[in-house]
Every structure is written in structure tokens, then in C-alpha cells.
């Protein structure tokens, strides 16, 4: 299967959409890594480097939006959601301005740069901001579609992209609908709810389960906020056990969001696969996924546990 990092998709999508839509792009000295450089090369008059000053960049973006322009502000997830949290909350979120935050290098798959750069907390942080839309695409096709959906949506959007190459499993005919999860595979015994980089791994885990006669449903939740309540509740009712999978802390991310929905509407076991309450470290992507429990085997194991917890 062909692979591409979703940050590459982000840069390419910005450049491709630059003619159809009127928007600005900001970066904080990471354009070469976030791939906004692709847009900058094509539309230099609409690209503004803010230097290594992410807090200022987010509030500048708010001012640009207040003056009527849609704007993307890009950095690594750590320095966007992390360092500039309060600027995003107060300058962008509270006045509900039309700023799109393009956060790349999210999660543990940043790899060798290690813990200071591995942001496993961004979804949790952004989820607490009222009115914030959070998109976490799984592959190139979805990432490209998510960028356009963000432009079309009025209000703040947090887009989460990865550093490492992810398999492209969606076809050219894929239709992205903001706020609507995708059922990638139907199943009756358990549901694996995955997001971002973990989606293709969740599909592999489902195959492992099938070999043992366990019918696993797989949902791709690309929009973490607003989350697709109906799809999750349906899965809880029909399969009776859920496992979430995300390249993010088990605290506050997809797992928490799913548990919040299910516990209120249809309480069933919800087990979470993600980075436990700890920091990352340097290593290759496969080594990190193994070390932090983010493999198909871990999902498979959790699925069986979830099934055993069914009443």
C-alpha cells in the first residue's frame, strides 16, 4: 500500500486549494517540516513566517480572522496546542474566530526527537475549548479532504497531522463529512474505535480477531469534536464492547470522548489503547509503537478483554 505522511498532505492541500479559496498561512519557523513551505512557494504574498514565537502567531491569526480573512496557523502540535494553548483559548476560541490550526508532528510517532516533541496531550487540551472542531485524519486522502472541510467550516478548527508515513487506504471516491465517523468494517462482537495513525493498525487488529472467529467492527473517528455520538451509541448497543485506539494519551483524547458518550447513553465496557500516563522517548516509529503499546497485537488483546467484560 502506498504511504504518505499526513503533514505532506497538509502542505499539498494548502497549495492546491490556494486558488479556489482566499486564505492566509502562518508558520513559526517550521514551514519546511509542517510543509506549509509548499504553499509559501506558490503563494508567497499570502504566507507569513512569524518566527519562533508561537503565542504571538496564534493571536496574530486571531487578528487576521477578525479582519475578515480565513487563516491557517502552523507549528508542531506541542508548540501549537501546548505552548500556545491560552492564546488559542482566549484569542481564537472565545471569540470563535475563523482560524485553522495546522498542527503537525503530533503524537509518539514524532520518533527520534523524543519526549519534548512528542505531543500526546493536544487532543485533550483542544477538546476543552468550547466550539473547537478537532480533525485527526488517518491518511493522505482523508487529510486532504479535512483541509478543505476546515476551510468550509466557519469557526476554529484544530487539524492534527503526523510526521511519519501512513498507508493510504481510502480511495479517490472517499467522501469526508465533518462530524461523521466512518464504518470501515462491520462486526458484531466488539467495536474498535480508532483515529488518525491508529486506524490502519485497528484494521489489522480486526483481521487478527476475524481469524479467531471474532467479528470486530472498525470505526474511523476523524472528527474528535464534535464526535459522532449516534455512530458510537449504535456500536455500543450492537456490539456491547468498545476498544479505542489513538496515538495520544489515554487521558482526555478519543478514549475519554468515547467513554463520555457511551457511559451516558449505553454503558458498555470501553477499554483504551493509547499512550499511558507517561512521557515518550527517542526511538524509531516501530520501536516506539511497540514500547508504548500501540500495535495491532495490543488492540487485539484489549478487544478480547473488552469482550470478556461484557455482561
Amino acid at each position, binding site marked *: 500500500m502506498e504511504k504518505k505522511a499526513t503533514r505532506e498532505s497538509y502542505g499539498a492541500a494548502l497549495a492546491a486549494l490556494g486558488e479556489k479559496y482566499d486564505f*492566509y498561512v502562518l508558520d513559526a519557523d517550521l514551514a519546511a517540516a509542517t510543509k506549509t513551505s509548499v504553499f509559501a512557494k506558490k503563494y508567497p*504574498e*499570502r504566507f*507569513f513566517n*512569524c*518566527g519562533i*514565537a508561537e*503565542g*504571538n502567531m*496564534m*493571536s*496574530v*491569526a*486571531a*487578528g*487576521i*480572522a*477578525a*479582519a*475578515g*480573512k480565513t*487563516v491557517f496557523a502552523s507549528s508542531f502540535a506541542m508548540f501549537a496546542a501546548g505552548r500556545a494553548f*491560552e*492564546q488559542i483559548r*482566549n*484569542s481564537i476560541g*472565545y*471569540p*470563535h474566530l475563523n482560524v485553522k490550526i495546522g498542527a503537525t508532528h503530533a503524537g509518539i510517532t514524532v520518533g527520534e526527537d523524543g519526549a519534548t516533541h512528542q505531543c500526546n496531550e493536544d487532543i485533550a487540551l483542544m477538546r476543552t475549548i468550547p466550539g473547537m472542531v478537532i480533525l485527526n485524519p488517518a491518511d493522505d486522502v482523508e487529510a486532504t479532504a479535512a483541509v478543505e472541510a476546515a476551510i468550509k467550516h466557519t469557526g476554529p478548527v484544530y487539524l492534527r497531522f503526523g510526521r511519519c508515513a501512513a498507508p493510504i487506504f481510502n480511495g479517490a471516491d472517499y467522501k469526508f463529512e465533518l462530524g461523521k465517523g466512518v464504518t470501515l468494517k462491520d462486526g458484531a462482537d466488539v467495536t474498535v474505535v480508532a483515529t488518525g495513525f491508529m486506524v490502519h493498525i485497528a484494521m489489522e487488529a480486526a483481521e487478527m480477531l476475524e481469524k479467531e472467529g471474532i467479528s470486530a467492527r472498525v470505526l474511523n473517528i476523524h472528527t474528535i469534536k464534535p464526535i459522532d455520538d449516534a455512530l458510537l451509541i449504535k456500536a455500543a448497543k450492537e456490539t456491547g464492547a468498545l476498544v479505542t485506539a489513538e496515538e495520544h494519551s489515554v487521558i482526555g483524547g478519543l478514549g475519554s470522548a468515547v467513554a463520555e458518550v457511551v457511559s451516558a447513553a449505553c454503558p458498555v465496557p470501553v477499554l483504551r489503547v493509547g499512550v499511558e500516563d507517561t512521557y515518550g522517548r527517542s526511538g524509531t516509529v516501530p520501536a516506539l509503537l511497540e514500547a508504548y503499546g500501540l500495535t495491532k497485537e495490543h488492540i487485539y488483546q484489549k478487544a478480547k478483554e473488552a469482550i470478556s467484560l461484557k455482561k
Partner: protein
Amino acid sequence: MDKETLSTLEGTAKRIRRGIIEGVYHAKSGHPGGSLSIADILAYLYTKEMHINPQNPKDDTRDRLVLSKGHTAPALYATLAECGFFSPEELKTLRKIDGRLQGHPDMKNIPGVDMTTGSLGLGISAACGMALVGKTEQKDYRVYAVVGDGESEEGQVWEASMFASHYKLSNLCVILDWNGLQIDGPVEKVMNPTPHDKKLEAFGFNVISIDGHDFEQIEAAFTAAKACTDRPTAIIAKTVKGKGVSFMENQVGWHGKAPNEEEYLLALKELQ
């Protein structure tokens, strides 16, 4: 400046100061000191300098003002009421649960408020963003950012200053309200951010220092700011915290405290 203009401005500033006192008194909380210190500058900007449109507050061609020192919202609200964005009566609803005049400026719900502020250091950056759009899209509006002296201890103020200078935002004018006091005491004792003039010059600003209560100096400064077309301007306005109410002047305790009834009546009397 002719006598009539001066007298009109003085009258406007007095009404703004009375509005500040009305608002804070009825709210039983708020920030009178730093509101009173910027009343003359806001009076001049909103009645003599800025192109605004109270009938269409979001008019795209309007000049913008970002009150980066957002806690002095009572001054901005009193000025907006003076200009007709809403009724001066509404000032009495400041900070009330069913009112729209939030403790800090809210652009979503208050006519005439150009940017939501309150968290220090953020507003000046937003003003940069507005100025950047103006310059890029070749619109001729100007953007004003009112920054507190204590606020200048925030690192983001200097990130924004770097940005304004880098992108030659000559349509941006920063007003530094140098009233000398912040919550915990004299600014120079809490964390000395001076010398502002040298720092702002080093950051690439056209720096003008004035007495922020002298309308002739205020007029000259804003005129000079407009004439400067290659870089942003910073006006360092030496002001008196609590200006116009004798017992509030230069008193750190009046940073964020409402007057009681006796003090309220005395303040209004002084502002007749």
C-alpha cells in the same frame, strides 16, 4: 488646537470618566485606575482620529482599536457609549449576569469592540494581524493597540513588536499607557520593563513620548504616527493612574476596586 476643540475634548473625556465611575460603581468591581488613565487618549482617538461607524460597527473600512490592556474595559465601554454604539445607561449593566458588557472586552456581543481581550499580551498581537491584513489587501484603515506598562512585562508584547517591525506595519500605532502602577505596586519595582523608548526603538518602532493627558501633544503624536509610512509607531504616554478623581490618582489600591457610595458621589462631583 483651537480653544473650542480643546474644550469639547475635555468635556468628552469627563463624560468618559463619569461613565467609568458609573460602570465600576454599579458593578461593585472592576478597574477604575487604568481606565481613568487612558480616558483622554480614547476621547481623542474615537472623536477626532479614528474613522468609525456606530451605525455599522463592523464596517470593513473602519479604523480598529484593540484594548490590549483589556481590564480597562470600563474606559472602552464609556467611550463607545459616548460615540453612540450603545446607550450610556447600559454602562450600569457592566459585569452583570444578564448584561452584555463583560468584565473584559467581548467582540462577539458588544457593538464597537474590535477584539476580545483580557489576557495580557494577546491584544497587541491581534492588532498586528489586523494591520497585516490591511497592508496586504491595500486597505487604508489604521489599527490602534493600547498596551499597559505592566502588560509590557509579558514576553508576547515583544514577540508582537518584533512582528510589527518585521512586516513594517506602518498602519499600526501602539499606545503604551505609562501610568507607573500595576497590581502589586510601582511597575519599576515589581519587574522593571524600562526603558520603553530605547527598547521600542531597538525593536524598530517610530517612538514618540508624550504627556497622555495633554490633548495638543496627543494630537501631534497621532498626526506624526500617520505621517510615518515605513514602520510602526509607538506612543509612550505618560499618564496618571486614576486621573481626574483626586483620591484615586497614583494610588495602587485603585487598580481593581470599586468605589463605595460616598466615594462614587465624590468622584462624580469632581468630574462635573
